[in-house]
């Protein structure tokens, strides 16, 4: 397997705050990795470091290159959508295609034009005249036509309605993703992407609190809807998270064999969203809220 991104002790400080407090990452080819964390956890900083947009300390190799010194070469094989706001308003659709065709050796102009032909976007329109959803479609058309090895998406569907969001990810999966390519995505809308991720990385206050393949999660974490009479005995097995909904106690266990927990109630594999909330509630800085 080829390693696409490898980081060791990646650090970045903004003044007194550590945006990245020394993280280790290893992302292999052909994976769809969700980088998930609350606001200010360091997701965007990590992506910026990976894209060579910011300085950092520690070791970082992306596609075997140093993103800081070799950003130019790296960008031939990396595509990047930050969020919908970055395409300039004055740019016309056909100029955007013209431009990328002019500067990117791996851009397939026909493919981009075919994709756009399936949308309502007129080639003469300026970005400023398009709706947010259309701007994303345009950006996507440009990105899909680039034969890149790594696609980085930072909150790509921010501010879009559900139809565009769904279409966005469907297009990425159907028209873009294959075993040669790797996608790294951050988003707040975990539910929406959790079915397409192969790997998750949780970031919390500049540190990795969880890094696992999605299959691995099932083996490591168990969610139990505990029967009311077994709550006390289930607690003895030290769940790392517990919440009560409609009188039902839901507990999350880490590293416990299913057999041990079988008697307490119904066993499930927790969703990534559940795990995320649980892991974040672990943090003393956040209100514990519903957690017992």
């Amino acid at each position: 397997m080829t390693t696409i991104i490898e980081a060791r002790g990646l650090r970045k400080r903004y003044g007194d705050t550590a945006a990245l407090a020394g993280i280790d990452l290893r992302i292999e080819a052909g994976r769809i990795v969700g980088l998930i964390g609350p606001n200010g956890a360091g997701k965007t900083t990590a992506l910026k470091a990976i894209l060579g947009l910011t300085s950092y300390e520690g070791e970082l190799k992306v596609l075997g290159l140093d993103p800081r010194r070799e950003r130019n070469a790296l960008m031939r094989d990396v595509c990047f959508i930050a969020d919908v706001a970055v395409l300039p308003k004055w740019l016309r659709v056909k100029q955007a295609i013209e431009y990328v065709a002019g500067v990117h050796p791996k851009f397939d102009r026909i493919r981009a034009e075919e994709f756009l032909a399936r949308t309502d976007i007129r080639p003469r329109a300026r970005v400023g005249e398009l709706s947010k959803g259309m701007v994303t479609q345009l950006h996507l058309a440009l990105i899909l036509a680039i034969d890149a090895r790594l696609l980085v998406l930072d909150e790509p569907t921010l501010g879009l309605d559900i139809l565009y969001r769904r279409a966005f990810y469907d297009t990425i999966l159907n028209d873009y993703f294959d075993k040669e390519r790797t996608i790294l995505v951050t988003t707040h809308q975990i539910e929406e992407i959790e079915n397409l991720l192969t790997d998750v990385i949780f970031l919390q206050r500049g540190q990795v609190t969880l890094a696992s393949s999605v299959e691995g999660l099932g083996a490591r974490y168990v969610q139990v809807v505990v029967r009311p009479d077994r709550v006390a005995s289930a607690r003895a097995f030290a769940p790392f998270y517990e919440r009560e909904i409609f009188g039902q106690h839901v507990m999350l266990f880490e590293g416990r064999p299913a057999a041990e927990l079988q008697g307490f109630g119904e066993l499930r594999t927790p969703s990534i969203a559940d795990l995320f909330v649980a892991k974040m509630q672990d943090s003393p800085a956040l209100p514990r809220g519903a957690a017992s």
Partner: protein
Amino acid sequence: MNVMLTLIRREFWEHRSLWLTPLAVAGLLVLLAAFGAHASHGPRVTLQLDGREQLFLDSLTPQDRSKLFGVQIGLFLVPQLLVMLVTVSFYVLDCLYTERRDRSILFWKSLPVSDAETVASKFLTAILVLPLLAYVLSLVTGFIGYLLISQRFSSTPWVGLAQWNTLVWLRMQALLLADTLVAALWYAPLVALLLLASAWFRRNLYTWVLLLPVGVAYLEYRVFGTAYLTHLLTYRSVGFFAALGLHPVTSLGGPMPAAADLESKLNATGLIASADLWLGLVAAFAFLYLAVRIRRDRDDS
């Protein structure tokens, strides 16, 4: 090289004033030439000169006539260059500033274009592409202007003033092209400095660019009683026109240079031999280097 062409085209897409303004100036010049030709044909001029025109025309040597012709042609470049100084200043100040304000820098940086290439494309647009555009437009408008004037003069005694002279035309064009390129080299440090300002300031760019030099010059005057900065900036701004013998301040109100020595006056190629021009270029490269570093290293988008 293809990448550089694309980058330069991009500049014209974003800053439409870069080609609209010189075109507008060219259109205006043609209109003025048409109107001027018409007016000079009117009775008032004839009355004023009252038959003395033949005397005046007879006094002109063939050399004088060819020089008048050259001046006619050359005068179409000067307004273009003056207007362009303004357009270029605004363009250069804007180009690295706005991409951060609207965050489009993230899009530009998501493509395999280095910071050096980006800054170079903006610098080349300002210093080479735009002056050449102004030159080509002045060549075309000069020719149209000549046609208009000569047609109006054709049935008057003034016909002798608008005689086509291919040799003079070619010499004039070569001279104006050389002047344009020398002007580009002369203004390179100022353009690079404005590019640096465009990359440097995070907000209130225009306030900084206007107030900083004034403030520093004032401080210099208060503390040291000197005015080196003022002199330096003035010299770098008007030095080219001074070399042309058209100092914008001293020639105001003064007598116009005689037609006979205008052609030699219009020659600024002597600046090439001046150490100041080359020192300026060294400074320009230093400013550009800093602008590239700032665009690469600064992370405020």
